[in-house]
C-alpha cells in the first residue's frame, strides 16, 4: 500500500507544519518519514490490484487448474492418448431359420407321377371340401389319414351303373357278386365296399354311378422328415415308409413295419423320432422346417431337434453341443411366422461409447479411447495452440505496429494499408480452404497442428499491430519521449526502456483476452473437422463426435466435459484479461 500524506505534497521538512505537531512524542515517526512509505514499483502495484480482484483470481485459479490438468495430468494418467480399449463381447449372427410347414409335400408311389397339374387340382378339391378330383382321363380320390396328411389314390373304373343297369368298362361282364356287393353298399349308404380283398369305390358321374378300384398314387403331407443318416434318405422318402410311419404316428403307435423292417417311434413335444429295430435313430418327423441361412451349411438333425424343442417350449435361447463337443449358444427371435436362429459368437470388440466407470472416469469414446486421457492431451494441444498463436500474433504485430508507429510517414501508411488488406481476408472461408488443402495433401497430424498455429497467427496479428501502432503514436508525442531525445538517449534505450514498457500492459491485456478467442477458434475448427486430426486430440475435435445427434443425446460424457473445459478456460482467460485491464488502469487506486 502506498501512503502519501495528502496535505503534505512537498516533502521538504522545513515546509511541513504538521511535522512539528506530531513530533511531540520523540519515538513517534515523523509524518513524512521515509519509513512510513512503502515503495512499490508499478509492476507490484498492478500485481496488488490484480490479486484484490476476486474474479481475476478465480480466473487465474481456473487457468492454473487447466494447466495442471493438461500438462501434468497425462503424466499421471495410466493410459495413452491413442490407446484403444477392447473387450470380449458376444455378437449374434443369423444362422438358421425355422418355420411351421404350411405347404403340403408330396411323395409319389415308386414309378408313378403326381405332377404339378395334378397337385393343383388336388389343392382345388381340398379347398372345395371335395373327396375326389379328376385331371385329364384320370380320376383321383383322397382320404385324410391324419392332420395334414392326405392319401391320394387313382380310381380305375370297372363298371358304370345307371338306373340299375351295369355296364362293364373293363372286361366283358360285370361279376354278379360285384353287383350284389354294390347293392348292399347302396342300401347301407356306403360309398365303398370290399370284395375279395379289393376295395371298390363308388363315385357319381352325372346320373351314373361309377364303380372303381383304387390304387395309391401319392401322399400329401405337412410333417417333415429328416434323416439322421443321409444314406437313409432314400428309404425315408419312399412312399411305403412314409405311409406306414404317418399311419403309425396318427394312431400314436409305438412301432410299425415297412417291408421286413420294423421301426419304433418315440414322441416328444410335437415331433416324433423313428428308431430302427437296432435302436438307432433313423428319422425325425415334425411340422417345423429348419433350414440353414447359408445353403452350403448342413444342419444335423440333432440341431434341428434342439431348435424345434426350443420353439415348442417358447424358449428364446438354447444351447447345442456340436460334433466337436463344443457348446454353442443360440437365440431365437420370432418374426411373424418364422423364427430366426442366431448363433452367438464371442469376438474381441472395441468398447465403443462405454459409460463412465471407475477405470475410465469419463468413459470411452467412439474409438474406444479413454475420454479423460484424451481431454488431458487435448488440453495440451488447445492451450499450446492458444499460446503459440498469441505469441506469433504478438511477434508479428509488435514488429509491424512498432515500425509503423515509430517511423510514421509513408512507412506507416503502407503498413497500415497492408494491415487493412490482411484484415479483409474472411477468416472462416480461408481456414476452411486451408483445412481441405491439408486434407488433400494428407498432412501429418503433428504438422497439421503447427500449420494451424501459423494460419491462425497470420490471420490474427493485425489487431496487435493496430494496438501497438496507436499506442506508440500517442507515446511518441508525449513529453517524456521528447525528453529522452533532449537528454540524448540512444534509440535502442528509448525503445526498450521507454516505449516497450508503456506498450506492454496493453499487450498483456490483449494477449490474455485474446487467448480465449484463439482457443474458441481452435475448438470451432476442431469441431468442423479442420483442426487437429485423429488420432491426436483437441477439445474441439473431441466435441466433434457429438455432431451426431444420436451420440449427443445418448452419450453426455462425450461432449459435456470437453465443452465445460473450453467454457471454463475461455472464462478464465477473460477474467484474467479483465483483471489485468483493471489492474493496469491508473485510475483504479487499489
Amino acid at each position, binding site marked *: 500500500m502506498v501512503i*502519501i500524506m495528502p496535505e503534505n505534497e512537498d516533502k*521538504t521538512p522545513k515546509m511541513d507544519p504538521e511535522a512539528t505537531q506530531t513530533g511531540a512524542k520523540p519515538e513517534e515517526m515523523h509524518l513524512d518519514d521515509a519509513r512510513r512509505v512503502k515503495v*512499490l514499483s*508499478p509492476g507490484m502495484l498492478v500485481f496488488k490490484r490484480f490479486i484484490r480482484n476476486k474474479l481475476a483470481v478465480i480466473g487465474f485459479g481456473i487457468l492454473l487448474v487447466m494447466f495442471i490438468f493438461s500438462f501434468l495430468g497425462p503424466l499421471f494418467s495410466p493410459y495413452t492418448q491413442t490407446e484403444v480399449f477392447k473387450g470380449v463381447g458376444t455378437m449374434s449372427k443369423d444362422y438358421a431359420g425355422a418355420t411351421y410347414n404350411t405347404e403340403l409335400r408330396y411323395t409319389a408311389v415308386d414309378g408313378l407321377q403326381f405332377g404339378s397339374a395334378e397337385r393343383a387340382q388336388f389343392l382345388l378339391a381340398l379347398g372345395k371340401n371335395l373327396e375326389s378330383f379328376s385331371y385329364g382321363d384320370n380320376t383321383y380320390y383322397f382320404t385324410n389319414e391324419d392332420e395334414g396328411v392326405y392319401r391320394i389314390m387313382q380310381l380305375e373304373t370297372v363298371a358304370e351303373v345307371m338306373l340299375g343297369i351295369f355296364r362293364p368298362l373293363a372286361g366283358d361282364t360285370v361279376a354278379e357278386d360285384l353287383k350284389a356287393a354294390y347293392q348292399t353298399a347302396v342300401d347301407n349308404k356306403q360309398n365303398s365296399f370290399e370284395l375279395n380283398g379289393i376295395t371298390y369305390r363308388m363315385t357319381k358321374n352325372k346320373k351314373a354311378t361309377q364303380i372303381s378300384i383304387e390304387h395309391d398314387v401319392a401322399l400329401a403331407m405337412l410333417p417333415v422328415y429328416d434323416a439322421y443318416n443321409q444314406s437313409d434318405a432314400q428309404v425315408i422318402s419312399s412312399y411305403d415308409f412314409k405311409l406306414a410311419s404317418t399311419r403309425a404316428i396318427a394312431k400314436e403307435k409305438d412301432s410299425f413295419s415297412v417291408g421286413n423292417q420294423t421301426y419304433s417311434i418315440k414322441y416328444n413335444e410335437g415331433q416324433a423320432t423313428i428308431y430302427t429295430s437296432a435302436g438307432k435313430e433313423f428319422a425325425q418327423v415334425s411340422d417345423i422346417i429348419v433350414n440353414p441361412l447359408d445353403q452350403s451349411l448342413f444342419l444335423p438333425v440333432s440341431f434341428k431337434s434342439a431348435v424345434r424343442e426350443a420353439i415348442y417350449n417358447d424358449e428364446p435361447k438354447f444351447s447345442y453341443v456340436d460334433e466337436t463337443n463344443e457348446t454353442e449358444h443360440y437365440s431365437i427371435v420370432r418374426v411373424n411366422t418364422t423364427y430366426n436362429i442366431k448363433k452367438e459368437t464371442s469376438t474381441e470388440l472395441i468398447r465403443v461409447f462405454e459409460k463412465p466407470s471407475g477405470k475410465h472416469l469419463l468413459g470411452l469414446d467412439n474409438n474406444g479411447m479413454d475420454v479423460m486421457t484424451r481431454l488431458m492431451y487435448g488440453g495440451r494441444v488447445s492451450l499450446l495452440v492458444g499460446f503459440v498463436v498469441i505469441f506469433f500474433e504478438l511477434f508479428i504485430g509488435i514488429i509491424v505496429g512498432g515500425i509503423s508507429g515509430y517511423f510514421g510517414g509513408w512507412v506507416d501508411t503502407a503498413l497500415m494499408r497492408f494491415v487493412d488488406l490482411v484484415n479483409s481476408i474472411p477468416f472462416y472461408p480461408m481456414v476452411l480452404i486451408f483445412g481441405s488443402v491439408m486434407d488433400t495433401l494428407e498432412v501429418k497430424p503433428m504438422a497439421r497442428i503447427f500449420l494451424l498455429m501459423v494460419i491462425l497467427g497470420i490471420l490474427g496479428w493485425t489487431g496487435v499491430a493496430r494496438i501497438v501502432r496507436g499506442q506508440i503514436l500517442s507515446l511518441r508525442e508525449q513529453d*517524456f519521449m*521528447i525528453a529522452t531525445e533532449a*537528454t540524448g*538517449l*540512444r534509440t535502442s534505450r528509448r525503445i526498450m526502456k521507454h516505449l516497450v514498457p*508503456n506498450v506492454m500492459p496493453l499487450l498483456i491485456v490483449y494477449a490474455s483476452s485474446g487467448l480465449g478467442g484463439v482457443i474458441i477458434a481452435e475448438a470451432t475448427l476442431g469441431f468442423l473437422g479442420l483442426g487437429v486430426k485423429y488420432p491426436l486430440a483437441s477439445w474441439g475435435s473431441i466435441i466433434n463426435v457429438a455432431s451426431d445427434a444420436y451420440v449427443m443425446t445418448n452419450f453426455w460424457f462425450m461432449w459435456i466435459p470437453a465443452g465445460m473445459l473450453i467454457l471454463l478456460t475461455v472464462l478464465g482467460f477473460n477474467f484474467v484479461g479483465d483483471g489485468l485491464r483493471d489492474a493496469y488502469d491508473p485510475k483504479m487506486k487499489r
Partner: protein
Amino acid sequence: MEQQFLESGALPDPVLEVNNLKQYFPIKAGLLQHVVGYVKAVDGVSFKIKRGKTMGLVGESGCGKTTIGKTILRLNEKTSGDVFFYGFDIFAISRKQMRTIRPKMQIIFQDPYSSLSPRLPVSEIIGEAVKEHKIVPDNEYDNHIDRIMKACGLEPYHKDRYPHEFSGGQRQRICIARALALNPSFVVCDEPVSALDVSIQAQIINLLKDLQDEFGLTYLFISHDLSVVEHISDDVGVMYLGNLVEHGVKKSIFQNPLHPYTQALLSAAPIPDPTLKMNRIILEGSIPSPANPPSGCKFHTRCRQCMEICKTVAPETKEIEPNHMVSCHLYD
C-alpha cells in the same frame, strides 16, 4: 567538439544566437497526403542570449514560443535560419554528434505529468542519461544524483519511487533534476510553472533562480505569465504569431513598451493594488491562424494604431533604444 563544450571556461559568448529562424509545419490533406500549405509557427526570429542570463519569451497561446524552444534544441528540424550554440551551428552536425552535445542544452517541460515515464523510478529518470553520457565517473554517480536531487528539493529516499507517487510540484522538481543532472549550461524552461498552483510556482521559480546562481546556467524562459517573466528574466522577448515583435532588456521593455502589442499585453497584466485604476487596452478578435497569417505586419488586424503601410509592408526590426529592438512602422 564534445571536449570543447566540456571546457566551458573557454567558450565564447553569446551562449545562443538565433538568426532569422523559421519553422514551418506542412499541412497535409487528401488521399495522397500532399502538402496544401504551411503552419508558420516561427517565421523569422533572431535573438541572442548571453551566458548566465535569462531570456524571457512571452506571447499568447499559439504564437510559437514552445516551437522556438524545441527548434533551438533541434527537437524539430528547422525550415531555415541558423541556431548557433556557443558558435556551433547545431543544424550543421549529424544527429549522432548532436547526441553528444545534448547534455549541454536541456529542456524543462510545461506538463510535469506527461514528461515523466510512468514505468521508471525517479533515480532512473534522473540518472539514465547521466550514465549514458558518462557525465560523472561511476564511483561518483550516486553522490552526483543525490546532490542534484537535494539541490532541486528532493530527498534521497524519493529515488526508488515512481512518478505517480508525487505531486505536480515534486514532479516538476524531478524534471528539473533530470535536466540539471547532465550539467547543462543552457536550459529551455518551457512554461515550467504554468501547470502548477501559485504557491508551488514561487517555489519552482525561486529554485530555478537559485540553481542559476549555483550552476551558472543560461535560461530561455518561455511563459505567458508576465509577472513570472518580469521576476526571472534579464532580457524579454515578445512574440506575436511567429514573430519576435519586440525584445530587449527587461527594464526597458516593462517600463517603456514600444510595440502596440507589448503595450496591450502589459496593460492586461493584473496589478495587486485595487486603488489603482487600470488603463487596459482591449485587443479585438483573436490571434489569426498561423497557417494563413495577415499580410504586412501580422498584428495589423488587431492593432489600434494601424496604418496603411502596415497592411502591405512587413516592418523591419530596429534598435530604438540601446538593447531594445522593436518591429513596428510607428518607429520608422
